[in-house]
C-alpha cells in the first residue's frame, strides 16, 4: 500500500523534477565543499547565491542590453530569413542563384564573424545585433524555404481553379499560411541559436553592459568565478523563458491545424 502511495505521489507533475534538481544542487554543494575545495575553480551554490545578492542590481540592466542585441538580431534575422526563404522556396531560379552563397556562408560559426562585425559596425549595439543575426538567419531561412517547398500541389491547383491566379496571391493566400508552422519552428530554432550568439556578440566589448560583456570583460579577467557561473545560469534561464513564451504565444495558435495533417498523412 505504501509503495503504491509513493508511486502515485511521484507521478505528480513536477515532483520528480523538483527532487532531481534539489539533489543536483546538494551534490554540487558537497562536491565543491569537500572534494574540490577551490572556489576559484568550482564555487559552491551557496557562494553563487551570495554573488547574486551582491550584484543583483546590475542584472536587469545586463539582461536588458543583451535582450536589445537579441532583439535586433532576431528582428533582422526573421525579416530577411523569411523573405529570402520565401523567394528561394517559391522561385526555382532564385534558389539556384542564392544557393552557393547560402551554402558557403551558412557553416561559418557566428563567433568567426565577430572581427568583421566590429570592423564594419564599430563598437555599437548593431555590431552585436549582427552576430545574433548571423546565428538566427540561417535556421529561419532554411525552415521557411522548406515550408514553401513542401506546399502540396493540390492546394495550388485548388487555389488556381478558385480564381487565385497571380504568383503573389498564391504566395500570400496559400504558400505563406501553409508554411507558417515551419517558419515558426525556424524562428524558435533561430531564437535558440541567436541567444547563444549574444555572448559571442558581446565578447569584444561592443557595449558597456550585457550578460556576455560582463561575463567576459569583467568577471573573467577579475577571476570572479562565482559571478561568472551565476551569469551562465542566468543566460540559460533567460533562454528557457524566451523559448517557453514563444511556444505559449505562437505555437499554440499555429500548430493546431498542422497536427491534424501529420496524423492524417
Amino acid at each position, binding site marked *: 500500500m505504501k509503495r503504491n502511495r509513493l508511486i502515485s505521489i511521484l507521478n505528480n507533475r513536477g515532483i520528480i523534477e523538483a527532487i532531481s534538481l534539489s539533489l543536483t544542487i546538494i551534490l554540487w554543494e558537497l562536491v565543491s565543499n569537500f*572534494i*574540490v*575545495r*577551490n*572556489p*576559484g*575553480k568550482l564555487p559552491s551554490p551557496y557562494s553563487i547565491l551570495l554573488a547574486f545578492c551582491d550584484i543583483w542590481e546590475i542584472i536587469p540592466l545586463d539582461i536588458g542590453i543583451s535582450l536589445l542585441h537579441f532583439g535586433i538580431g532576431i528582428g533582422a534575422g526573421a525579416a530577411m530569413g523569411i523573405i529570402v526563404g520565401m523567394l528561394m522556396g517559391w522561385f526555382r531560379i532564385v534558389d539556384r542563384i542564392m544557393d552557393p552563397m547560402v551554402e558557403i556562408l551558412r557553416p561559418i560559426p557566428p563567433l568567426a564573424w565577430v572581427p568583421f562585425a*566590429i*570592423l564594419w559596425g*564599430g*563598437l555599437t549595439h548593431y555590431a552585436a545585433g549582427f552576430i545574433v543575426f548571423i546565428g538566427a538567419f540561417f535556421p529561419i531561412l532554411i525552415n521557411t524555404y522548406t515550408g514553401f517547398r513542401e506546399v502540396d500541389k493540390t492546394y495550388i491547383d485548388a487555389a488556381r481553379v478558385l480564381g487565385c491566379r497571380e504568383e503573389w496571391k498564391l504566395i500570400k493566400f496559400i504558400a505563406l499560411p501553409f508554411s507558417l508552422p515551419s517558419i515558426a519552428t525556424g524562428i524558435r530554432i533561430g531564437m535558440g541559436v541567436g541567444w547563444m550568439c549574444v555572448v559571442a556578440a558581446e565578447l*569584444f*566589448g*561592443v557595449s*558597456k553592459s550585457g550578460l556576455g560583456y560582463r561575463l567576459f*570583460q*569583467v568577471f*573573467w*579577467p*577579475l*577571476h*570572479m*568565478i562565482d559571478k561568472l557561473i551565476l551569469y551562465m545560469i542566468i543566460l540559460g534561464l533567460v533562454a528557457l523563458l524566451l523559448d517557453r513564451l514563444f511556444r505559449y504565444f505562437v505555437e499554440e495558435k499555429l500548430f493546431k491545424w498542422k497536427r491534424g495533417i501529420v496524423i492524417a498523412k
Partner: protein
Amino acid sequence: MKKYVSVLLTLILISGIITVCGASEIKTLRIGYQPSTHQIAEMTAMEKGWWTRDLAKFGVENITDTEFSSGPPEMTAMMAGELDVAYVGTAPPITAIDKGLDAKIVASVNTNGSALVLSPGLAANYTSPADLKGLKIATFPPGSIQDTILKKWLKDNGLDPGRDVHIIGAGPGEAITEIMTGVVDGVFLPAPSPTIIEMADAGKTVVYSGEMFPNHACCCLLVSGRLIREHPELVKQIIRTHINATRYNNEHKEEAAEIYARKVRGTDVEKVKESIKRWDGAWVYDPHIEINSTLVYAKVDYEMGYTNKLLTEEDLFDTSLYDEVMGIAPAPGTVSPTPQPTSQPTPGFTSLLVIAALLVYIVLRRFKI
C-alpha cells in the same frame, strides 16, 4: 588476470599517493610573459640561455616560457597551475591573490612605460582629460595595470570611467587593429604599441602613464608560493638572473630591441628601437620601490569592488629573498618568509582517484575476479 589487475591498481594507488604528496623536485620551470618591451629581461635571459645555465644546478632540466596578451589571462593560467613564474604587472596579481592565487611578488621589472594614444584628429584637439568624454578607448582588461591607472586617472580628473568613457578590454594586437581601423578613438597600452601606432601615423601620444601617476609600478616578477616555500634558493637564483638580465639590457639598449624583435614575431626592430627611445619607463629590479604604488592599485581595486578585501603588503610581496640576494639586512618588522597559506588548494581529484582505485580493488577482491 587477477595478478595484472592487482599490479595495475597498486600502481595507480602509488602514483596517486605520489601526486598527492607532491613531487619535491622541480624538473620543469614554466615562465609566463607578455609581448611588451617592459619585460625584455625575461627574453634576454631566455635567448642567452641564462635561465637554463643558472638553474641547472637546482635540478631544473627544462625551462618553458609562454606568451600572454595581457596580465589577467596570464593570472588565470597561473591560478590553474600552469605557471610557476610570471612576468606581469603588479595589478593583476592583486585580484588573483584575492581570489586564492598562492604567489608573491619577489622583484620588480619596470616602472611607467605606458601611454594614451589618440587618433590623429582627436590628438590634435586634445587639451585636457575632459576631451575624452564620449570617446572609445581600448586598453588591457580589468585588473590590469593599464585599466587600473586609466580608471584612477579619469576619476581623479572628474570623469566617470563607466559612463563618460567607453573603455573596452583587449590585447595589444586587437587594440592596435582597432585604432588603426577607427573602431576605437584611442588606446592606452604599454610600449612598444604606442610607438608602433605613431610610426604608422594612426595616432599620437597625448599622455604618458608616468604623467598620470609618477613613478608608478608596472611589471614585476611573481613567483608561486610553493616555489618560495619549498625552493627558496632556486627563487633567489631566479632573482639574480633577472637582475643580471636587467642590467645587461640597460647597458645594451639596441641589442635589447633586437632580442625583442626576434622574440615577438612580426615586430619591426626599428620601431622597437624607437619605442625604447620614446618611452618614459625604466627597467628595474628592486621590489621595494613598487610597494607604495601597488598598494594604491589595491585600494583602487577594492573601491571599485574588484576585490573582496583590501590587500596589504604582506598579502602581495615577499621581499626577503631579494634582500638576501642583495645582502640587505631586513628592516625590523618586515615580513617573515612566505608562510603556508591557510587554505591549501586540495588536489581533490587525485584523492578521488585514489579512493576510487581502492574501492575497485576491494570490490574486485570481494568478487574474486
